[in-house]
C-alpha cells in the first residue's frame, strides 16, 4: 500500500516539510550538483546507453568486416583497435556501470527502506569519474591511437618494444581511472547495504537483489586493485624503464597474465551476479510466490564471486604451466558451477510452482536462463585442460563468453528496464512491442553467437581481421553478421518502445505488478526523499505485508520516524538491523564534479608524460578534497 496520499492534514504538513528539505535545484545546475541516488542512477543510465551504442557500432563494424572472406572494410590496424575498444567498452563502460551505477544506485536505497546511499557526494563523484574516464579513453579512439592489444592486453605485445605509441598508455591510465569510479561505487554499496537498512531489516530479511549487489561489490573491491597494480607495473615498464615484464632483465611475461586474470575472472562473475539479482527480483513478482530456497540463493550469490577468485589460471591452461599447478584451478572451476546451478534450479522451481505471467520482464528472464545454461555448459567444457588447449584463442571461446555476457548479463538488464520502467517513469510500457522485442533479440543473439561454437571448433582463431575462402567458415560468419543486424533491430525496438511509452504510456500507479520489495511501496516515480516514513520491515518481501504498510500510514499520521527535522537518515547495525543513530546527510554539492575534473587533469598530464605538471594537478585534487570536507553536517 503506497503512502502516496498523506492520511491526515498534519501528515500532509510533514510531507510538505520533507519535500522542502529534500528538493533539488532546478535545471542543469541541479543535475551537475545532485547527490540524489535516483538522479545519479539516471545519469548513469543515459551515459551507459551512449557507450553501449559505441560498443555496438564497434561490434557491427567487426561483424561486417568478417561477413565475407578477404573483406577490406577496415585495415588490420583499425580492426585491432575496434575489437579492443569493443571489449573494454562493453565491460567497463556498459555492463558494470549500467548494472551497478544505474540499477544499483536507483534501487538499493529503495529496497532497503533508506532515503539515500551512505555517502551521497561520493556517489556523485563515482558518476563524474566514470564519465570522465570514458571521455579519456574514447579520446584515444578519435585520435586514432586507441588501445590495440586486446582487452586483456598481454605483454610482450603491449610493452614498449612492440607497441610504441601512446595506445597502451591510454589503456593503462584509462583502466586505473575507471577503476577508481567502480571502487567507490562498490564501497558505497557495501557500506549502504550494511549500515543504512531500515531498522528491523536483519540480513535474513534483506532482498536477494541486495545480496547479489553485495557479492558484486565485494568482488569489485578486491579484484580491481590487482588490475590497477598490473597496469601500474605496465605503465612503469613503458614510461619509467622498469623491467617487471621484461624477461631479458629478470622479469616475467606471465606475471601480467596472473595479475590480470586474478582480476579478470572475478570481473566476469561481477558482470553476471547483478543480473542474477535482477532475475531474483523479477521472478517473485511475476510468479507471485516467494523465491524457493531463499537462504541457498542468497549464499549462492556470494559463493559464486568468492570461489570465482580462485579460478583465474583457467585462462592460462595453454601457457606451459605444470599440470599440478593447473589442477587447482580446474578443480575450483568445476565447483564454481554449483552455486550457479543452485540458483538456476531455484528460479525454475519458483516459476513452475508459482502462477507465472510471462509478461516481457519474465520473458527476458526465461531467455536469460536458457542462454546462461548454454554458456555455462561450454564453460564447464573448458575446465578440461586438454580440451581447453585445443579451443583456446578460437571462436569457441568467443561463443561461450558472449552467451554468458549477452545472454546472462544483458538480457536481465533489458528485462529489468521493462520491469522497473513503471517505477522510474510512472508510466506503463506497451506490452506487445515489448514481447516482440524480446523474440527478435532472442533469435538475433542466438543466430549471432551460436555458429561461433562451430566455426571455432573448425579452427577459426579469434581476433583475425579476415580469413580465406574455402575453409568452411564463410557461411557461418555471414549468418553471424546477419544475426548481429537482427540483434540491432531488437535493441532499437526495445529502446523505441520505452521512449514511446515514456511519452504516451498509461499511468502506472505505485504498484502495477504487486511487487514484493519496498520500491513498490512508494509512489511512481518516488519522491526525492524516497519514503515519507522509514518503513517497518518484518520479512524479505515487505510489500506483501499489508499490516506493516498500514503501520507506516499510522506512523506518518503520528509523526513517528518521519525524520523531517533536517536532511535525515537512519543508520543501523550491520547484521541484525538494530537502530544505531540518526544522521544528517549532505545535500547538493559542487565538489564531486570539481574533484572529478581535477582527477581528469592528473590523468591527462600522465598520458602526455608531463609528470611534473601531473603532480601539480594532484595538489589541485587535494585542495578539492579539502573544500569537500570543509563543511560539517551540523553546519548545514
Amino acid at each position: 500500500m503506497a503512502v502516496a496520499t498523506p492520511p491526515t492534514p498534519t501528515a500532509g504538513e510533514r510531507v510538505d516539510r520533507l519535500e522542502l528539505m529534500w528538493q533539488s535545484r532546478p535545471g542543469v545546475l541541479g543535475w551537475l550538483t545532485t547527490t540524489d541516488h535516483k538522479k545519479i542512477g539516471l545519469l548513469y543510465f543515459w551515459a551507459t546507453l551512449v557507450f553501449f551504442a559505441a560498443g555496438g557500432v564497434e561490434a557491427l563494424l567487426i561483424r561486417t568486416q568478417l561477413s565475407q572472406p578477404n573483406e577490406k572494410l577496415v585495415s588490420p590496424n583499425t580492426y585491432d583497435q575496434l575489437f579492443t575498444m569493443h571489449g573494454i567498452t562493453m565491460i567497463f563502460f556498459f555492463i558494470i556501470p549500467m548494472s551497478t551505477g544505474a540499477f544499483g544506485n536507483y534501487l538499493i536505497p529503495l529496497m532497503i527502506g533508506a532515503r539515500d546511499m551512505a555517502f551521497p557526494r561520493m556517489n556523485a563523484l563515482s558518476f563524474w569519474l566514470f564519465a570522465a574516464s570514458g571521455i579519456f579513453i574514447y579520446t584515444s579512439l578519435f585520435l586514432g591511437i586507441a588501445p590495440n592489444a586486446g582487452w586483456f592486453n598481454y605483454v610482450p605485445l603491449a610493452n614498449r618494444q612492440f607497441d610504441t605509441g601512446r595506445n597502451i598508455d591510454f589503456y593503462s591510465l584509462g583502466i586505473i581511472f575507471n577503476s577508481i569510479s567502480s571502487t567507490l561505487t562498490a564501497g558505497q554499496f557495501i557500506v549502504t547495504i550494511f549500515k543504512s537498512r531500515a531498522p528491523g531489516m536483519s540480513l535474513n530479511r534483506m532482498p536477494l537483489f541486495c545480496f547479489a549487489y553485495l557479492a558484486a561489490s565485494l568482488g569489485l573491491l578486491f579484484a580491481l586493485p590487482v588490475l590497477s597494480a598490473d597496469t601500474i607495473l605496465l605503465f612503469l615498464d613503458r614510461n619509467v624503464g622498469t623491467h617487471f615484464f621484461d624477461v631479458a632483465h629478470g622479469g616475467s611475461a606471465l606475471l601480467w597474465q596472473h595479475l590480470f586474470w586474478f582480476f579478470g575472472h572475478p570481473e566476469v562473475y561481477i558482470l553476471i551476479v547483478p543480473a542474477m539479482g535482477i532475475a531474483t527480483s523479477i521472478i517473485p513478482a511475476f510468479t507471485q510466490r516467494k523465491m524457493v530456497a531463499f537462504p541457498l540463493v542468497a549464499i549462492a550469490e556470494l559463493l559464486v564471486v568468492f570461489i570465482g577468485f580462485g579460478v583465474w589460471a583457467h585462462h592460462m591452461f595453454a601457457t606451459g604451466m605444470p599440470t599440478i599447478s593447473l589442477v587447482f584451478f580446474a578443480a575450483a572451476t568445476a565447483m564454481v558451477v554449483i552455486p550457479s546451478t543452485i540458483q538456476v534450479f531455484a528460479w525454475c522451481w519458483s516459476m513452475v510452482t508459482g502462477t507465472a505471467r510471462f509478461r516481457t520482464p519474465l520473458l527476458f528472464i526465461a531467455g536469460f536462463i536458457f542462454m546462461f545454461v548454454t554458456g555455462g555448459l561450454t564453460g564447464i567444457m573448458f575446465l578440461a585442460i586438454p580440451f581447453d588447449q585445443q579451443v583456446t584463442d578460437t571462436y569457441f571461446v568467443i561463443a561461450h563468453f558472449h552467451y554468458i555476457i549477452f545472454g546472462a548479463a544483458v538480457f536481465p538488464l533489458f528485462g529489468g528496464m521493462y520491469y522497473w520502467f513503471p517505477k522510474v517513469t510512472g508510466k506503463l510500457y506497451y506490452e506487445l512491442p515489448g514481447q516482440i522485442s524480446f523474440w527478435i533479440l532472442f533469435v538475433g543473439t542466438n543466430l549471432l553467437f551460436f555458429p561461433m561454437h562451430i566455426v571455432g571448433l573448425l579452427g577459426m582463431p579469434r581476433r583475425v581481421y579476415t580469413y580465406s575462402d574455402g575453409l568452411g567458415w564463410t557461411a557461418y560468419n555471414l549468418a553471424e553478421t546477419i544475426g548481429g543486424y537482427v540483434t540491432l533491430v531488437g535493441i532499437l525496438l526495445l529502446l523505441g518502445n520505452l521512449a514511446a511509452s515514456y511519452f504516451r504510456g498509461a499511468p502506472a500507479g505505485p504498484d502495477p505488478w504487486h511487487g514484493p520489495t519496498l520500491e513498490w511501496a512508494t509512489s511512481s516515480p518516488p519522491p526525492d526523499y524516497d519514503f515519507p516514513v522509514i518503513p517497518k520491515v518484518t520479512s524479505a518481501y515487505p510489500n506483501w505485508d499489508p499490516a506493516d504498510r498500514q503501520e507506516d500510514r499510522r506512523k506518518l499520521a503520528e509523526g513517528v520516524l518521519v525524520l523531517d527535522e533536517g536532511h535525515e537518515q537512519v543508520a543501523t547495525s550491520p547484521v541484525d538491523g538494530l537502530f544505531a543513530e540518526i544522521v544528517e546527510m549532505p545535500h547538493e554539492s559542487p565538489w564531486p564534479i570539481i574533484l572529478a575534473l581535477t582527477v581528469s587533469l592528473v590523468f591527462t598530464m600522465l598520458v602526455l608524460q608531463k609528470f611534473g605538471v601531473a603532480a601539480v594537478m594532484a595538489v589541485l585534487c587535494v585542495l578539492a578534497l579539502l573544500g569537500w570536507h570543509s563543511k560539517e553536517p551540523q553546519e548545514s
Partner: protein
Amino acid sequence: MTLRRLAILQWVGLMLGAWVWGAQHALGWGITEATCNSGHAAAGIDHDLWQAILAATAGALVLGGGAAAIAVLRATRETSYESAPPLGRMRFGAIAALPANVIFLMIILLDGLASIFNLACRQA
C-alpha cells in the same frame, strides 16, 4: 546454549570454510610453483607430502565448520529463517553455511588429490 555461543558457532560455520579453502588453494598452488620454478628447485620440499598435509588439515577444519552449522540448526529447530533476529538470522546463516561447507570440502579434496596424482612438474 547461550546466545553468544550460538552466534560464534553460526559465524564459524559460515566463514571458516571459505577462509580455509582460500588458504589451502593459495598455499597449495604456491607449493607447486615453489617446487617447479627455477628459483626454488633446490628448496627440498616434498611436494606430495605437503599437499596431503595441507588438504587433510583444510578438510578437517571445513568439517568442523559444517559441524558448527549443524549445531546451530539443531539449536534453532523451533525458529524459521524468516523469523526476527537474532535467532531467525542465525538459522538463516546456518542453512546458508551447509552448501558452502560441502562445496569447499569438495574443492579441497579435488585440489589435493589432483595435485598428488599428477606427475610433479610435468608441463600441461
